[in-house]
């Protein structure tokens, strides 16, 4: 549904180069540290910046040529941008009614009420959590086919985050061919929600894998020097020197479990995989 072909964007001290695809029916996650290029990727997808190379397509159409009707099908949450803080929820409802043909005002106000968002207060006076919830409610207030969410759960406590993830799962359940592109720092959120993950570092995609493969087949090996010498390095992706010897990342943990009884092979959590892919030595 969303395709980034050979995207290139150059800044004076940073450059982005990536290929990414979000398929209908999928929740795709983008994970990386601050400054890795997540927000730049999103801005490219939303035609907010000019590209130095490549293109982004939404349903086969270049995003530079999307009409108003096309844009109505995309719901967006940006981490550092939103409606003016001087507006109230009531104002926003009135504005959205004029912008989206299928905006349901009663439903929107009801949902805001349920989330305890005051309707007459200026949103600059909202707490971080309230602002985040409002942004998501706005993105979900009209019928969309794609959600592009940049750090939608930032600033939310665990309960609120779970609620948002639940809302996103319901969103996907309602229509089979919807899709979500979501970025986050919080790996556990992505682990439980996303179907596939892109890891970005320094403007490049370092890993793209289905979540279930990451959780089932990736593993972290902890070996002392002797054990490490004997290891077949074929399926090792990264290694990192530790006090005890070597920490290694593999994408075939069963191979090592079967052939090296006694070797410590742990399930790879997303956080660990990121740390190893980015911080570990390539093999």
């Amino acid at each position, binding site marked *: 549904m969303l395709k980034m072909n050979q995207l290139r964007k150059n800044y004076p001290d940073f450059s982005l180069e990536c290929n990414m695809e979000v398929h209908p029916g999928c929740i795709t996650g983008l994970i990386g540290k601050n400054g890795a290029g997540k927000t730049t990727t999103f801005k490219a997808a939303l035609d907010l910046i000019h590209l130095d190379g490549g293109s982004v397509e939404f349903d086969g159409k270049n995003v530079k040529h999307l009409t108003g009707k096309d844009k109505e099908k995309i719901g967006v949450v940006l981490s550092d*941008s939103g409606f003016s803080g001087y507006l109230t929820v009531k104002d926003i409802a009135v504005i959205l009614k004029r912008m989206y043909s299928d905006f349901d005002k009663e439903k929107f106000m009801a949902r805001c009420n349920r989330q305890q968002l005051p309707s007459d207060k200026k949103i600059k006076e909202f707490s971080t959590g309230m602002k985040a919830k409002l942004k998501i409610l706005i993105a979900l207030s009209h019928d969309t086919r794609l959600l592009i969410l940049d750090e939608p759960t930032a600033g939310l406590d665990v309960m609120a985050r779970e609620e948002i993830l639940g809302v996103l799962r319901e969103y996907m359940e309602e229509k089979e061919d919807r899709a979500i592109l979501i970025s986050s720092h919080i790996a556990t959120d992505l682990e439980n929600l996303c179907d596939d993950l892109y890891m970005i570092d320094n403007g490049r995609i370092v890993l793209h894998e289905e979540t279930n493969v990451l959780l089932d087949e990736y593993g972290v090996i902890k070996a002392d020097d002797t054990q490490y010498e004997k290891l077949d390095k074929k399926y090792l992706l990264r290694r990192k020197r530790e006090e005890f010897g070597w920490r290694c990342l593999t994408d075939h943990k069963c191979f090592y479990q079967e052939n090296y009884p006694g070797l410590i092979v742990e399930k790879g959590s997303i956080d660990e995989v990121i740390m190893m892919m980015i911080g570990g030595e390539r093999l």
Partner: protein
Amino acid sequence: MRGLMVKDICLMKGQAKFMLLVLAITVFLSYNTDGTFAASYLVMIASFLGISTISYDESDNGYGFLFCLPVSRSQYVAAKYLFNLLLSVAAWIAGIGVTVIIWLVHPGESGLTELLITNLFFLPVIFLIQSLMQPTMFQYGSERGRIVLFVMIGVIVAVCYLVGKLCELTGIDLSSWMESLSQYSVGVILLVFILLSAVILLISVPISVKIIRKKEF
């Protein structure tokens, strides 16, 4: 585009008290001044209010989200022009209203028709202000734009002064040229001004669109 205008109206709501205050001051001040004060003052205030909608849009990186909404760059520009024009014209009409009411209560030296015609000349001025202000604001943002605008006005005034001085030096007689113009009826002159300024306004629109299109958010 309607959504954008609704947004600007909602943002203006907060300024309602300020606008009433300005109206009161205008009524008070225009009591003893000439018949053009009310309209010119109100139009000037309206221009500043118009600029403030751009600074609202800019604040907190607002533009990023704004262009994720189903609006195109050109719709944004059109909405801004429309909103500013409507605001200025409304202020102008209010100014004329104040002038007329004061004249009815406290007639001055000039006749009503004369007063009205002088005020009509503000319409082309509105158009010219907008055609200068909008592209400048879009290009430089509201903070720097204000400064650039003042500098531009300063330059225009200086140029007019210089042209006047030049005419004096080279012996070109401006005043007699102006007198020769007065053979045309006021209506014709007014019409010419309105048309010219409208054309300039229309030319500034694609310039503004181009400026906004080039920007990155």
